[in-house]
């Protein structure tokens, strides 16, 4: 296969001096080893480096269009993001919450359970989906925001918004030592 026709000059007559036929076979094993090593390397580095993108859509800040509907407080759930990767949530309004503000964690046994329960409760009571308001405080970090958006994606809550935190909310976080 890899041999070349080395009998060149065979057609010549009278060629008496016959050079010894050296095989042109090269040992390719080492080359193949190296090639596969590099292939493996490139394969692993290319496929693992693909970043994922989470879409975040902020509410339009345009003041001219006055299409904002009032939000029924019975359907809202507010999540406050505090320090040390903790959060606090309540239903309704901050000054007269429908459920007492509760401190919770991220993750499966924390806010996800709450989101699933509350979402179901609201759906049963009003037939409309739950509205989640996220208020990150100045002490929260970026990963908190990504985590909570991720939880909302997991629990399939479509109506959510990131809004600015208010003074009463900060007071609430301070009371619970989260600010």
């Amino acid at each position, binding site marked *: 296969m890899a041999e070349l026709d080395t009998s060149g000059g065979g057609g010549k007559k009278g060629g008496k001096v016959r050079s010894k036929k050296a095989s042109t076979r090269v040992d390719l094993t080492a080359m193949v080893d190296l*090639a596969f090593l590099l292939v493996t390397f490139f394969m692993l580095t290319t496929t693992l480096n693909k970043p994922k993108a*989470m879409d975040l859509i902020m509410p339009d800040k345009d003041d001219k269009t006055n299409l904002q509907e009032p939000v029924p407080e019975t359907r809202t759930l507010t999540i406050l993001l505090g320090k040390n990767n903790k959060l606090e949530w309540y239903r309704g309004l901050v000054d007269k919450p429908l459920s007492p503000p509760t401190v919770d964690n991220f993750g499966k046994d924390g806010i996800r359970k709450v989101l699933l329960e509350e979402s179901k409760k609201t759906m049963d009571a009003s037939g409309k989906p739950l509205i989640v308001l996220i208020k990150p405080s100045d002490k929260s970090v970026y990963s908190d925001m990504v985590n909570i958006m991720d939880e909302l994606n997991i629990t399939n809550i479509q109506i959510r918004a990131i809004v600015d935190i208010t003074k009463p909310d900060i007071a609430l976080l301070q009371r619970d030592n989260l600010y």
Partner: protein
Amino acid sequence: MPRVKIPRKSTAIDMTAMCDVAFLLLTFFILTAKPRTDDPVPIDIPASTEKLLLPEADIATLIIGQKKVFFGIEGYELRKAMLVEMGNSHNPKMSFTQDEAIKFASLPTFGVPLNVLHQFLALDGEDKKNYTQPGIPVDTTDTNELYEWVHAARIVTRRLDDKDMRVSIKGDSKEEYPTIKTVIATLQKQNVNKFALITALRSAPK
């Protein structure tokens, strides 16, 4: 008694075909591999269960870490055009030489204020690497350079590619929220309300 001679067979196999395949694959992977761009600040991206892939063209990336903001856009020509556009739209006008434009276009991300951009571009390879970039000034006043950069980038993407530019945010997990908030506010000022947050894939749902 004549001995039965067992003919010795060579154990060498023909490696040519294997070698061909291996190098073909190698060439393919080398060509498709994107050179990894080093982030100007160490960024630990947060994990999520999101599986959507980040688009590869017409996308600008804002790198946020250590309270600094860096800006970058995909595409050599786009970066070059963006610098010219920025120079024209900035007040007072700035002009860049051809050499500076080429140097600028070869940078995947940058984070220097406009007033030191000339000096920064004049630095050589190693010096540029060691130079600590202070980040693009972002604030709520009128001299918000990030606003101007994003605006210039959007204009040139529209002009060259006839597409809307998408904005992605690559933030450090430990970055405090106020920095993120000012960046988002800056983008919303020009009605960019949709972003992609770059996340790593969480291996298994918690």
